[in-house]
């Protein structure tokens, strides 16, 4: 009886409470999200479109954009392959040390990005573990593109695997076992059963990974060497421009980065709307 009475009052309070909650959420979002975002775009466009275009079309800026796209592409592809392998292994097989493996996959989330960068300096720096050998063989890793890719891969490693493991675990091994009894080979099972079952989750993981890879600053800053036109990614280029009193250009590149993030968000929203309307699809 008491519970029912409570329920009745809470339903009666519903609309007011709902409005207050909605109000708080909206004010919060406006203050901390929309306002700064609008500020970035308004500062970027404060001297007109042609200045904005010049800032983005300048050689150092285009090279930063290209590098960011290249690094993002490579690290997302690598993490796609790794994430699929790891989640497949974890979800479909039993082996000792499984929970340790899951913890290891989560490690990059708990390590500060600066440390992630320094790890590679310690390994591949001139006086690092492999430094002498690399130098003798003229292989450049840190302060060059490979180092930036490595650091980005490290930082974004959990996204795909973390997205796929719960989905695969929820689905169990039933479908695969059925395919096996029907005579499908290992690859056939993977491409025709496992992969289609998780594709939306996979895409979602890729998008999250992509967003983080494009925006990574800390780890990349440590291994980049900040060579203009060569090892500057977009976030680093924004910092450089800002430090050169070139505020409009800094915000122009920042706004481009924000735009890329918004495209990613839009794709994610599109995926979610697909996902909820698809029968038997995994919950994201």
């Amino acid at each position: 009886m008491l519970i029912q009475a409570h329920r009745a009052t809470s339903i009666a309070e519903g609309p007011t409470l709902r409005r207050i909650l909605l109000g708080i959420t909206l004010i919060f979002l406006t203050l901390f999200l929309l306002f700064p975002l609008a500020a970035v775009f308004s500062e970027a466009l404060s001297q007109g479109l042609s200045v904005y275009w010049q800032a983005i079309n300048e050689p150092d800026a285009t090279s930063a954009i290209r590098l960011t796209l290249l690094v993002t592409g490579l690290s997302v592809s690598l993490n796609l392959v790794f994430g699929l392998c790891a989640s497949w292994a974890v979800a479909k097989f039993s082996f000792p040390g499984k929970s340790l493996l899951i913890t290891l996959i989560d490690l990059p989330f708990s390590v500060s990005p600066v440390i992630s960068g320094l790890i590679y300096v310690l390994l591949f720096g001139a006086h690092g573990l492999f430094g002498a050998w690399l130098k003798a063989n003229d292989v450049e890793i840190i302060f060059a593109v490979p180092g930036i890719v490595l650091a980005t891969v490290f930082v974004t490693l959990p996204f795909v695997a973390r997205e796929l493991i719960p989905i695969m675990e929820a689905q169990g091994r039933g479908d695969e076992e059925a395919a096996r009894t029907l005579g499908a080979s290992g690859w056939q099972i993977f491409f025709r059963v496992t992969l289609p079952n998780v594709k939306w989750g996979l895409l979602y993981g890729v998008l999250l990974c992509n967003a983080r890879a494009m925006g990574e600053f800390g780890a990349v800053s440590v291994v980049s060497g900040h060579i203009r036109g060569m090892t500057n990614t977009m976030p680093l280029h924004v910092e450089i421009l800002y430090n050169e009193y070139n505020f409009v250009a800094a915000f122009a590149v920042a706004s481009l980065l924000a735009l890329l993030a918004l495209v990613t968000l839009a794709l994610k929203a599109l995926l979610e709307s697909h996902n909820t309307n698809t029968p038997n699809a995994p919950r994201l």
Partner: protein
Amino acid sequence: MFCTPVSFRLHFRCILLALAFWFVCAPMTWAADATLLNVSYDPTRELYKDINSAFATAWKTKTGENLAVRMSHGGSGKQARSVIDGLEADVVTLALAYDIDAIVDKSGFIAPDWQSRLPADSAPYTSTIVFLVRKGNPKAIHDWADLARPGIQVITPNPKTSGGARWNFLAAWAWAEDQFNGDDAKVRSYMRALFANVPVLDTGARGATTTFVKRGLGDVLLSWENEAFLAIEQLGPDSFEIVLPSLSILAQPPVSIVDANVDRHGTRKRAEAYLNFLYSPTGQRLAAKHYYRPISPEYADPTDLKRFPHLRRINMTERFGDWRSVQKTYFSDGGVFDQIFLSR
């Protein structure tokens, strides 16, 4: 939004294709011409932008080769660290000699006699430390004594990572030594009071300047002379003015080729020509234009020279000794700076 299985599959393929296109479209097009990498400290961005294009033109006329000089900027100590860790610098142009000594000591990439290879201790231009205050000098800051007054906020970068900050520290120390007739306890208590007034330590000189001029933090910025002039030029003469203390320091930002790297890259000739260009009439004129005091003022534009005020600048090595021992005494872990900063 309802999807039939067919359109669902179609959408999925489209998205996959779009993603693939996105990734493939990031082409690798590095310039194939000859390049040099100059690893420099924070406030030289504008100077080397001009120097590099002038040198590229001169080199093209002389040899017919298209040469691009690439830049990396940051706090001087941090940049030295990167070169030690393997950043492929052909030349380093840093804020003070110790940072090049550190590369010699910790990596052996530079010959120990580097400082005698070029004229004037390998410093093609000099500078000094001045005060930048807000217009009208509302807090009446005129000399080093004023920085230790209660209620004054002083902006300076971190001497552990920034070369400019080390010059700031030594200039303040030298003034205090003169002021208190070398009484060590009084000098230290002055330095403690000064650093008690420092709200934030940026890693590099440019970061500190941005903190002061753009974020509006602090009453006075201890700054490279060139950086102070540039801040006024870039951000408005109606907002800031320079205050000259009664004594400052002769700051010599040195340059060197990185022997191990130029030999591996086969760029020794170009790198040497580049550094010699800094001493040439064009190099000296450009240094003065960007508010660095040229070592050969006869090559500079007289109107540029007029901007440099007369200022008593003490010689660092005569007062404090060589950089290796100064670094050890004042700026190493547990050194004088740490003692002062932790007990402020």
